């Protein structure tokens, strides 16, 4: 970790201005940034501490949906009564993320900026090739230890997995990111690696996440987040699914379905093919299982991560079946 200067922002405008300085990074909960600074990946010249900005930690539930301030803590959002009742998948995704200690520190805005756990990305001293860190330097992961790497959304330049949980639920329910005046959908906020894996988010210098907005829906109200992993707690997903469902009046025909995947892709992955295959159909286990296979359409494995292609559709199917059973 090298020396850096520290600024405490006392207004949103001041924070944005400081964040536009070369080498400046915003500091909120610090659970990712400090970690990445320790392993030599993040080398900020200036840390702009935004934790003292007021009014950015509110959780406002209305008829339209919910607006969550960027500085709301993961733990608070997970436990918020309105979130739990109207967006259970969001609450469950947060509960199953990280550890209690981290959830108490980490903010919602910071959570969206969480970076990959690719071990090659995280160890610049030993692995100099990483297109995410150094564009054009190559990818150490391809041909290496790939058990935790993505099978969807990869490119020749990068196969790093997006490790988070919350954004998987957000992308399922068409959430938007508030960047001050500008708003962008969560799906568009996360970028595919393509030939520029160093660019992960649709955020410009001087912009700052101020809030996340999730529109309310019947599917969001009847939703779940299923996370599968070897360790019961404090591990990133081997595969996960955020699923929300709405039935027609008959209680059996699917009117609306939302499916997104975690732990398998380079970004939070909306599985629209599964949704399209089941909307209008009668909820029935064999139909659900067959449609769930579409979740990994186009998947490409790199050897040790092949199991994710088997696993992800089963996770999706289990989550959809679980949501149907609780009619």
């Amino acid at each position: 970790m090298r020396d850096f200067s520290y600024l405490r922002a006392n207004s949103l405008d001041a924070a944005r201005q400081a964040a536009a300085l070369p080498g400046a990074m915003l500091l909120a909960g610090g659970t990712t940034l400090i970690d990445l600074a320790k392993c030599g990946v993040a080398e900020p010249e200036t840390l702009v501490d935004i934790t003292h900005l007021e009014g950015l930690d509110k959780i406002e539930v209305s008829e339209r949906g919910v607006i969550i301030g960027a500085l709301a803590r993961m733990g608070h959002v997970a436990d918020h009564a309105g979130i739990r009742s109207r967006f259970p998948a969001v609450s469950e995704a947060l509960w199953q993320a990280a550890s209690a200690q981290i959830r108490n520190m980490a903010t919602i805005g910071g959570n969206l900026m969480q970076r990959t756990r690719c071990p090659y990305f995280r160890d610049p001293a030993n692995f100099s090739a990483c297109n995410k860190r150094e564009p054009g330097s190559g990818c150490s992961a391809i041909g290496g230890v790939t058990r935790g790497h993505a099978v969807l959304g990869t490119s020749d330049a990068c196969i790093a997995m997006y490790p988070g949980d919350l954004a998987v639920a957000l992308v399922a329910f068409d959430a938007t990111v508030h960047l001050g005046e500008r708003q962008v959908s969560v799906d568009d906020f996360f970028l595919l690696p393509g030939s520029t894996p160093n660019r992960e988010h649709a955020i410009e210098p001087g912009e700052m996440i101020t809030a996340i907005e999730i529109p309310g829906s019947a599917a969001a109200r009847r939703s779940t987040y299923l996370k599968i992993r070897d360790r019961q707690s404090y591990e990133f997903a081997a595969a996960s699914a955020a699923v929300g469902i709405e039935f027609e009046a008959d209680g059996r025909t699917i009117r609306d379905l939302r499916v997104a995947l975690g732990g398998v892709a380079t970004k939070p992955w909306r599985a629209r093919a599964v949704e399209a295959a089941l909307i209008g159909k009668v909820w029935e286990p064999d139909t659900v299982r067959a449609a769930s296979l579409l979740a990994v359409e186009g998947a490409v494995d790199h050897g040790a991560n092949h199991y994710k292609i088997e696993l992800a559709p089963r996770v999706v199917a289990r989550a959809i079946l679980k949501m149907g059973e609780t009619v």
Partner: protein
Amino acid sequence: MTVHNIRVGESKRGDASDGALAQTVGGRLSRVDGPAKITGAAKYAVEQQLEGLAYAVLVESTIASGKVRAIDTTAVQAAPGVLQVLTPETIISLKTASDWFGTPPPDKPYCPLARDITFSGQHVAAVVAETFEQAVAAAALVKVSYDETPSIVDLSDGKAGDGIPIDAMTKEWGDAQAAFASAPVRICAAYNTPREYQAPMEPHGLIARWEGDQLTVWEPSQWLDGMARTYAEWFGVPFENVRLVSPYIGGGFGSKALALGHGAVAACAAKMLGRPVRLVMTRPQTFTGYGGRAATRQTVTIGADTQGKIQSIVHRGINETSIDGMWVEPLGSVTSIMYATPNFSSKQNVVRVNSVVPGAMRAPGENPSAFGIESAIDELAYEVGIDPLEIRLRNYAEQDPEAKKAWSTRQLREAFAVGAERFGWARRTPEPRSMRDGNQLIGWGVAAGTYPVRRAYGEAIVRILADGSVEVESSSIDMGQGTYTILAQTAAETVGVHADDVVVKLGDSHFPRAGVAGGSRLAGVMTGAVYKAAISALDQLVGLAISDPRSPFHALQANTLVVANGRIASPRGDGPDVSIAELLKSVGRDHIEATGDTMPANSTAEDRYKNYTTIAMALPHTEGDYSRHSWCAHFIEVRVDEDFGTVRVSRVVSALDSGRLYNPKLAESQWKGGIIMGIGQALLEEGIVDRRHGRIVNNNLADYLVPTNADIPDIEVISVGIPDLHSSVLGGKGVGELAIVGVAPAIANAVFHATGKRIRDLPITLEKLI
């Protein structure tokens, strides 16, 4: 400097489980060091605040094999706060130290910084600065260039070869090959365990300070006297000139028994700089700065009759070691003693790969050995169609099959019986996949474990002080296993005072000596030494009370007196009744002091030095007429999700024979800790190597998975031991390592019962089951 001061009484308030009898040997006294640890008052080695402390940071190799061509330190020298840059060229020369058997070392220099690279993560340089942050920043500026050569990644590398036969590991009786060939039932399978890591909470580190030719080292240590010897030999100073201080250790599991390269670097830096130096490994460095458990491969071949009676066992094992170091993980250790067999053959090779030399990790040898034989016997049970518990009883070894000696005690049959009863084993349906709960396949598995009783020597001082309290001193250590507590109980019961009135001081090599806290030997050794010292102190006290003319008991003409609850009285209660403090005052003494040890009576000074600074003098567990071991049986239930392949341990019942327990509460905690570590080994733990770079890539606690609380169900442990006076002075056998042995095969056996899939490669991760 205050080393350590713990009074039992301060710790036990409010703990109802302690009970009235807690303070004697065998009582459930809570850990006396617990409050200091949970309140943060306990000061660990590198937390010492020393005047002029400087900070060292290691630089490690980024290749697995080759030579350092050059180290460019230009930018480092100019970095803020830098005091010193150590490279093989600039560091002072040390002498090679003897190994832990005390084998005289070759007369050649030792350099803890490498020019020849044999593994990724080897120490190549170090930077010392005024602050830790400055040292970290400067260390990142060190530029090392290499001439790289091809490396041997691991046991599966095509270049690894068959390895070196270790003849001392060969065990043979009867004609195992012929008996196997003629056996009506034959099974043969290969079992693999990966690199595993001790991962203690407290990373390795130290503070070294020189005053003239006197070296003080604050360092977490499982073996103060052994490590002091190594430091003394490196620097060519007398053993007595080195003082190791280690009152608290944040977990060792075998990894903190030896002085290691990073310690030499810090001590060199302190000597060269003339200032105390602190060096703490980063978590990634703890995966390469010393060895974890070696990766192993075993083939177990069993020939049996149709009733499941074993006729022959043929066992072949290999473990990895480093290019220039030797580590033998004895893979036939459980194989040769668990079951009666008329024909047996076990051989072992060691294969050199480009890794750090592997080291001791909880039950080295027994742990992987049991994974082989306890999986194989389960396979045999299915082959012949006999219950896995029944087949173990049919092949029960009534004596040590290898040494052909009687067991000192072996309560394994009792362990099977009690464990099966508590677990409800009789309700098990034998067919794989025959028990389920919704999507969860349920499996029940059993496996046995064992660990030998290693006996060595210890010394202690017991002082009875003017206020009637008792003080115990020993250079032995407490890494959480409970030494402070059981020695307080031993001294309290023996002298006749409350454990509240005993102060135990450990973790300073200037105290009376002790051998390694490894191999589950320390409790048996040290309770014996303290018992003997306390008896001697008590004799002095009673002697004074009877014979000193100033004593209130002098006129009584008694032969003996009774000391209890800190008071002295005649056996019949017909004389005075005074406190120890009052007696000492009346006879004009400010304390009574006695030493005790467990060494043979005619031990020389040289014997004593060897006893405590090497492991060469330890008594074999088969010495004399008996074979001495701890035993256990694990009954484990798993739930395997049929779609996801995830394995969750939902129930554990283990019955264990560690002989007499000096403190059941602490023994149970150690057993549970071993079982938890075994669950991690079975399901999660594996050092994963990048084959192109020869480097462990999951070298941190987010990616190297150990169990969380959510992974661990309630664990029931039941003691079935009886006092074993062939094993120790007070009748205990080993506790700390026993319980991990057999957990992984019990889980693998349960997974087979749940799924019908036999997993022979640990860990049992989900992709192996979907």
